Structure formats: C-alpha cells, structure tokens
C-alpha cells in the first residue's frame, strides 16, 4: 500500500526581507542577509520551501556591560567600551548581523546624545561589513530623539531599525522611509495588536514587505511559552494568507537570559544545576532553537558561545533544500 501524501499546502508565504546593502546596492556591506520566504511551518521539511536559514545577530552596545551576566560578560570584557573592536569580533564569532543596542542613550545609562549615537552607528558600519540592526531604548522620547539621526547616519545601508510601537511609531516610520531602512514592529505577545500596528505603519506609508515583527521576547523559563504561541498563531494566520501576519519574526534573546536564575546562578549557589559555564550558553542557545521552532527568523544573542551552539544545532535541524535532500 502506498503511503498517502499528508502534506499540507498552504496559500500564504512569509515575506522575504533582505537586510544590508552591498556597494552595488548603494551601501558598503560586504554581504546581505535575507530571511523569511517559508511556505510552511518550521521544520516540516516535507511540506514547503525554506529558502533561508535563520539569521543570528550579536548584540553590541556603547553602554557599560555591568548588568550583563558573568558568562556573557566574560566574552566581551576586552572589547566592551570599543564598539569598533567589538563589531569586528562579532564577525569572527560567526554572527550574520550586528545588533547595535542604543541603551547608552537612555539618561540612566549615560544619556548619549543623538549625535553620539549617530556616530556610533557610523563607526560600527565602518568597522564591520556585516548588515546592521539598530535597536532603540525602551523610552519613546529618547528613541524619537536619537533614531532619526541614526537612520540618517546609516542611509543607503538598508539596516533594520527598531522598534516601532503602537504608541510611538510615526517618527521611526518616517525616518526609515526617508532613509530606506527596514523596520521592527513591536507588539507585546498579541497578534491582534501586532496586526493593528502593521496597519498603522502601512497607513503612514511603510511597505508591509519592509516590516519585521517583534512579539517581544521571553527566555526559556521566563515567559517564552507566551511568545512561542503568539509566534505560532501568527504563523498560522500568515501561512493561511493573512498579509498582516506574513512578516518574519525577530526575537531579542540575549538580554533576557540574565533574568533566569536557573541559567545564570553561579555554581556555589546552585551546585545541583551543574557548571554555569555550560548552563548559561546552553540556555541561550536552547531558547534560540526553541524560537526557531516557533517560527522566528532573526535572533539577537549576546553570548558568542551560545551563537555557535545554536547554529550547530540548527545546521542539523533546518530542512535542506529539496535538491540536496
């Protein structure tokens, strides 16, 4: 008896979004990264197309890294404080993109001026050929001050800027439009709110194809389940044809790991959990792989070791294109 074909054919596909621009494309990146394009649920290799493997960005920042947990901090200790060196390192560590976190602009973390932030962007772009993600603070006023200067500083480089939120999307949308960047639309763990934000962005002229969505992020053991199901539900809607849910997903994992006691508590305190040098990166990598299984395409990490582990795991898991299968 022949085995019946049970594979599902879905009507929708996730948008393909390219970040970065090479010299021919008007930028100065040595390569670009494309994510999305899937036509089925993650990992169901018999069902659809998976043209691009998930992409990993490593986070760098001009703010001090005192609040980073020790296992992440130890890797960046030599380069923290020197964005250019750090950016160069990211490439060596195997990152596909660099994520510049602008936390340093927050008044509580040094209050770097818009001009300084713009300069940071420029220096990172100068120091590495990787495509760039720029992540704002969590304060609307600060973002509205610094981000327009930063998009300008990166004009032509086709970066990914975030984040636009329901209550504060106009300024960033206008600057991304003016300077031709992609935009991160952040809506906390709710596909309705996420769709609403996409409509708002569309209403101010942003192309739906230029949006990456951010359902916010929780680490494994710290709210990941909520985000996981949100991504899953959004993916079902998108693959079923809802154009407002066909945006690829970014999750910002690195900064969440430090919140999980099981991941970072030192061995002296919790000997039953084993070596923290093993635990911390593994936790970050496992969170990342979990999110890929939910459907996330772009993952921002802090710990280079976690990045390598996650990539290795995914090389084995990610469906190969049919010709090589």
């Amino acid at each position, binding site marked *: 008896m022949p085995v019946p074909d049970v594979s599902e054919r879905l009507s929708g596909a996730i948008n393909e979004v390219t970040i970065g621009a090479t010299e021919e494309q008007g930028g100065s990146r040595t390569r670009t990264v494309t994510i999305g394009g899937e036509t089925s649920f993650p990992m169901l290799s018999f069902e659809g197309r998976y043209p691009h493997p998930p992409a990993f960005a490593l986070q760098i920042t001009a703010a001090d890294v005192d609040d980073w947990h020790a296992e992440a901090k130890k890797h960046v200790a030599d380069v923290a404080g020197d964005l250019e060196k750090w950016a160069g390192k990211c490439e060596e560590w195997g990152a596909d993109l660099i994520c510049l976190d602008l936390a340093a602009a927050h008044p509580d973390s040094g209050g770097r001026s818009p001009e300084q932030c713009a300069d940071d962007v420029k220096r990172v772009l100068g120091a590495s050929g990787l495509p760039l993600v720029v992540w704002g603070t969590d304060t609307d006023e600060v973002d509205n001050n610094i981000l327009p200067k930063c998009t300008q500083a990166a004009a032509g480089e086709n970066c990914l800027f975030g984040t636009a939120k*329901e209550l504060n999307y*106009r300024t960033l949308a206008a600057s991304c439009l003016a300077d031709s960047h992609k935009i991160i639309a952040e809506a906390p763990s709710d596909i309705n709110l996420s*769709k*609403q934000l996409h*409509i*708002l962005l569309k*209403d101010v002229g942003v192309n739906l194809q230029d949006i990456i969505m951010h359902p916010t992020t929780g680490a494994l053991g710290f709210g990941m389940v909520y985000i996981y199901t949100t991504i899953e539900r959004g993916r079902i809607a998108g693959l079923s044809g809802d154009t*407002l849910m066909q945006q690829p997903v970014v999750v910002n994992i690195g900064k969440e790991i430090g919140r999980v006691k099981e991941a970072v508590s030192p061995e002296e305190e919790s000997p039953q959990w084993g070596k923290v040098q093993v635990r911390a990166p593994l936790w970050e990598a496992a969170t990342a792989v979990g999110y890929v299984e939910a459907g996330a395409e772009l993952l921002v990490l802090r710990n280079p070791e976690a990045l390598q582990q996650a990539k290795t795991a995914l090389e084995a898991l990610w469906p190969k294109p049919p010709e090589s299968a």
Partner: protein
Amino acid sequence: MPVVTFLPAGVSVEADPGTSLLDAARQANVPIRNDCGGQGICTRCQVEVKRGEVAGRGSGGGLAEGRFLACRTLVAESDLEVYLPEETREVETEVTLRRTDPFPADYPPPGAMVETVELDLPAPNLDDNVSDSERLVRRLRKWRDAEYHIPLGVLKDLPVRLRDAQWRADVTVSVEPWGSRILRVGRPARKKPYMVAVDIGTTAIKAQLLAPEAGWVASCYNSQVMFGPDVISRIIHCQRDEEHGCPALKQLVVQDIERLIAALLDAQGVEREDVWALVVSGNTTMIHLFLGLYPVWIRREPYVGCAYLLAPVRPEDVGVNINPAGRVFCLPAVSSYVGADITAGVLATGLGDRKRPSALIDLGTNGEIAIGCEEFLVCCSASAGPAFEGGGSASGTRARPGAVESVWSEGTLRWRTVGDEPPVGICGTGYIDLLATLVRERIMDKTGRFVAGAPGVVQRDDEFLYVLAPAEQAAGGRDIILTQADVENLVRAKGAIYAAGSVLLESLGMDWGDLETIMLAGGFGDRLNKDNAVTIGLLPDVPRERIAFVGNTSLQGAVMVAQDAANYWKARDIAGKMTYFELSTHPDFMDRFVSACFLPHTDTEKFPSVSAAQE
C-alpha cells in the same frame, strides 16, 4: 466625625475621614456634576474648600488655584466648608418635551392594559339574589371571559356605587398575569383611563403620555447619574451604603418619573387621577432600583437578579403619584444583563415574528444584542457601557436640543445640533460621525490616537484632545471636546458590541452576512449615519439597506404593551423564550474584542467598503 457643609446650599453631613467630598455630597443629597462617575477623569466635579483641611490628591494637575476635584479629595480630621461653583452645580435636571404624532381621539383602543367598560347589570331580585360582586363578575365574564379579582378597597363601596349608578356602571379593569383586576366601579366616567409608558434608561428617562390626542414624549437625565454613569457604579453604591444606597437611588428615579409625568400632564391638561397605569421598561438594574429591589447580586458571579418576571404593583408601593387605584406594570427581563428594554425591543421590532434571522443591537445600557426569527431567539450583553449615550465622556450628552448630532467634513469639520441650538455637548450619533470623520481626515489613527499637529488637535496637561467647538460657540461656555480617554471608551464600547455580535453569530453557525436586517436601537440621536457606523466598525460592513435605525425601542415596546394587552403576553413569551448567552466566560470573546478595538477592525478584509474608501 467631621461635619462637611456644602455651600451655597448650606447642607451639612457627617462624614468619616477618608470619605471623598463627592461621596459626602451624595450622602447629603447635594448634586455635584461627575460625568466620569468619580474616576478623576472629567474634572467636572470641581469644588473650593473654604475652611478646614482635606486629604487626597484632588488639587493641582492643571486645576485653578484653590480648586479641588471632589471625587479625589478626602475628608480629613477637621470640619469642612466646601463651596460648589456654579458649573459644578449645574446637574442637568431640565425636562425636555418633544411633540410626536397625536393619538386618535378614541385612544387607547379596546384591549389596553387598563380599560373601562360600561356595563348594564340586571338588578337583583328574590330569584336572582347572588351577591353584588358575583353579579358584577358574572356580567364581566360575558364581556370578557377571565378570572376577576375585586380588591377590598373596591369591594367596600361596591354595593353603594352599583346602586348609585342604577346598575349601569363603568368598570375599570386591568390585565394581570392571573386574569383581571377591578380598579373602579361607578357612574359612567367622562374619560377613558390614561396611561404613561416609561423607559428608564441608565442615562436618560423617557415617558410618553397615552391619552386621546396626546402627542408628547418627555425626557430628562436619570438623576442617578450623580452616582456614576453606568449600572455597575450604581450597584456598587447600593453595596457600599447598604442602608441608604438602594433607597436613595430608588427615590431619585421615582422623582425623575414624577417630573416627567408632571410635564406630560401639564402639556396635555390632564389630571393625575386620570392616569391609571404606568408601563415601565428598562434594563434589569434600573427596574430593580425603580422597585427598590436590592440589586447587588446582579454584579456578582453568577450574576443573579431578584426578579425578572414581575407582577403588577400598586402605585403607592413604588411611590408614584398617579390614580392610587391604578397599576404599575414592569415589562419582563431575560436575565441580569438582558433586561426588559430588550424584551420591549424584540417586541417592538417584531424580531421574533420574522421568517429570516435578523439582529437587534441596543446601544442603550450596555450594548445588548438579540438575534432571531420565528424559530429561535438568542441574546447577549456586550458590557459596552453607556458610551454612546454620552455617559462618561468629557462632552457627552443625551440627545437633547443643542446636542451635536451629526459631524462631517468640508475641508474643515462641520457639525450640527439638535434643533440648531448652540452646542451643549455631543450625543451618540454625533460621536459616531465624529470618530469616522476624524479617521477619514487622518486627524486620528486607526487605534483612535490623535495625530499630533493635526488641525483641531491640542495638547492639554500632557494629553491630546480634539476641540470640536470652542467655548465661545458653546452654550455652556466650555469647549466641546473629544479627549483621548473618550475615544478609548467609545472604541472599547463599539469593539465590545461588534465582538459580542460576532461570537453570538458564530455560536449559531452564522455570519453577519446571513442576517436579513441589522437593527440598531437606542435613544442616542435621530440621525444615524450608517456609513459612519460601519466606518468605525460599530456595525458590520453589510449592504446599507440591511441596516435599519429603529430608535428607542424600549419605549416603543412599553407603549405597545400599554395599548394592547396581547403584547403584554407576547412580551412575557419573548422573555421566556429568549436564550441568554453568557459572554464573560466565552473563550473567544476576549480575542474578538481586542481585534475589534481598532477602526474599523484589525481584520480589514471584513470591512471591504471601508478599506476601498480609504485607498
């Protein structure tokens, strides 16, 4: 206990430290404007503290020096003298009289809830010597076969009156659930018994005089508004003040009804004695409060009211001053959150007689929805609150002269008021138009947030708001505005209604498109712009001829019952037949609600005509 004296009225009340000045005023029965129900939002409750120390956070925040929000200012240890500025005292008590088509000269028709028949009785003799009462009943049975009850008061002078009328008497009877009650026997009267139909809305009360050639509807604010804009805040008041709360609310609504009746009688030149019946409709909480029934369990799980199917009562038992032998009929409710107003609406619109399913959406109390046809009736409550009746909004008002009832754009925003009078506020239809127009003109985005810098949008105390009419043009000398909080309130209300309808339809395996007619009811204005109601997603995007605006069907239903007892039975039948659907426990409701809290809706494909117009 500190004593609070309110000026200029000079009324004093003892209040525990920690009581808000607004609550103290309520206890003293001193009306203070509180359009947001004491949430610290509307700033209408401003007072001046002339003497004594207060606590709480009632001052500052953009208020003039010396001004306090009564709802946020607390009694401390000392006695207080609190002065109420004029605008704080201006709780609207005015009665509006509106003309309608007059009834015919022989109104009400035979078969009304109360009617008078002239009967010839055979005089008793030795062969036919049954008692006077049996004689009367025997004769009545020939006229109309029913059970008759003669109350003691009528019985007492029955022999005298029958003989005085020389066995040719007028008998006034009322229809009761178990038969008929004899209200009066006597010489033929000049007049037919008149009735008054009443709709007790959470925001406004309406009454219509049912008498020959009468053509008046009187309306006023429900004075209970001083205890909060929605049914929940009124129930909370009963709960907080167990002893006086419920009686105080009852007294307010009875007084309101008294004022309405007085205005109607005055307009028509009719005596109170001639009014023999009140037929009352309203949501479950309002009817509870009208009868003085303790409503507290309506609000607590599992949400159970005291009574839904009510027997007629004597006027003096409720405290209304009509003919003391008359009757007060309350229409039956379905559940704690689907009240007599909806039963009346179903009756008035004939929803349960239709061949194909239709929907009735009442924007009145809470956004109740009934769907059905001759084969079934289901209903639910969207818990939408009275936003579209103007409740809880900065410039909200009921539909009355001067209420902005329509808004449109001709480059700039234009509006018109009921009766073309200077604007006093915005009523429901005005809000629907205003939201739709602001979105269309991109003065507001689709979440309902104002766009900074757009024409008409100003920033006050860190908040954006839209000024529809500046104070110079307005009747009350205050700007007519739409605040961000108002918009959120309205969007939540319309989202709840749409989501409730969608969930109810889905449970029936149906869709909005399967409905023959979608009837929108409520007393929130007369000029509903259907396109605008769809543009904001209050109503689904169906062909416009399927949408019908049916007005205040609660009052219409009460009138129908009063003038034809057959409708009384029908209303009871409807209430008994209607299946109530509890949404608060429905797993999909919350999700539907969030997706509907957008203009018009998160799923834009559900509103193709709106998207097409915006492209």
